């Protein structure tokens, strides 16, 4: 299935999604990768408020190249999501509804998607120039000192992703690979 959706994401919408569905996302999404996640989760552990409200939101695992004069943002494709596995469940438990990245997630994240009604979405890795065209505005909203790893608020228009992990335990990486795996005569 293909859906057009505007953030924030509702439970009703997420219930419709299955691994392999394609989405075109519009609205506000937030960026964050290793260093920002480490700080966010340190705040969660101390019971302190976060610099962004993650409820219903999507975090895009990306550290863009610097924007040239006149550009909204530089190249902006997804980074490998597995490095955020240690942090994501705590943010999902706070109401985060979606994550965009590339590469496999661990069982703890998949369990957190199930119990919180959330999804993990894949964008095409290495297509940073192409994906940046779907970003219409960008501003740093936290941790400016982290440079490329700062948290940015992005405004996106029809940002293309595919559902990798849905809230029912579906995993597109596992299912897609199984379909094309074959024996080799040796």
């Amino acid at each position, binding site marked *: 299935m293909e859906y057009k959706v505007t953030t924030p994401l509702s439970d009703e919408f997420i219930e419709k999604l299955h691994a392999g569905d394609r989405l075109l996302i519009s609205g506000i999404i937030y960026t964050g990768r290793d*260093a920002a996640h480490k700080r966010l989760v340190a705040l969660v552990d101390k019971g302190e408020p976060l610099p962004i409200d993650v409820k219903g939101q999507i975090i895009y695992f*990306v*550290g*863009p*190249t*610097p*924007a*040239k004069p006149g*550009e909204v943002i*530089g*190249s*902006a*494709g997804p*980074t*490998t999501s*597995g490095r955020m596995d240690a942090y994501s469940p705590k943010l999902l438990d706070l109401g985060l509804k979606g994550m965009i990245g*590339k*590469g*496999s997630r661990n069982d703890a994240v998949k369990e957190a998607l199930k119990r919180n009604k959330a999804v993990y979405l*894949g964008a*095409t*890795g*290495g*297509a*940073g*120039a*192409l994906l*940046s*065209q779907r970003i219409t505005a960008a501003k740093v909203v936290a941790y400016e000192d*982290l*440079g*490329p*790893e700062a948290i940015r608020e992005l405004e996106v228009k029809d940002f293309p992703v*595919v559902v990798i992990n849905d809230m029912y335990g579906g995993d*597109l*990486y596992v*299912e*897609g*690979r*199984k*379909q*094309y*795996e*074959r*024996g*080799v005569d*040796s």
Partner: protein
Amino acid sequence: MRELDVARITEAVAKLAVEACTYLGDDMVDFFKKAAEREESETGRDILGQLLENAKLARDTNMPLCQDTGLAVVFLEIGQDVHLVGGDLETAVDEGVRKGYGEGYLRKSAVADPIGARVNTGDNTPAMLHTRIVPGDKVKVIVAPKGGGAENMSAIGMLKPSQGIQGAVDFIVDTVSKAGPNPCPPIIVGVGLGGTFEKAAYMAKHSLLRKVGSTNPEPRLAALEDEIEKRCNALGIGPAGLGGITSVIDVFIEELPAHIASMPVAVNIQCHSARHKEAVL
């Protein structure tokens, strides 16, 4: 003896870093086109189409192909009849990285104190520099930005000689299998066989400079490359890991004799943003 000012090396490193991050080689563009024709998965064909479009867009708009513009891996082949003047060579190379990544609006991805504070060095230095002294009076400068996602999926095995060819091939294919969708497939598999621990890793990295589609001049290694490629493409990983028959772009092997007790096998994985540019000074 020919004199060469290291300022020229600075300029070359800066220029090549920007070019490498922006202009994908024709060998890779040709590969995407051919792979899109034979890929069985519709999603896979779509991804390969996106990668072609991305390469064209990057070239037309001078935007980096990928936001991960890597650590700056630099290879220098220095002719033994060249006298380098005007300053210290390593400083000159780092200055080239600083200039290229700064003026070229490339991402600075280097952090100091890697297991602790991880503070960004701010200018993507230091370069990961490899120098070789070769005959002649020229200096060849190769800049090969290397992203973290694929580098993280690389591995080295200090295997037992009794494991033989089968053991080595299994280790390589297993490394690709475990990497799965993480390193931005389709990938190039760089392999270093033999040597010592560090030489094996170096060969695996250096092999990635070869042209996609080229044949290993040593028939024994060419056959091995074909076998590994076939086995990797049967894993079903596919473009972006979403399933398909295009998991591997190419397999490149370099080899050295090993110690009688050792059988090192290094696997350096390169994402499809296979970037390297060179110049001869």
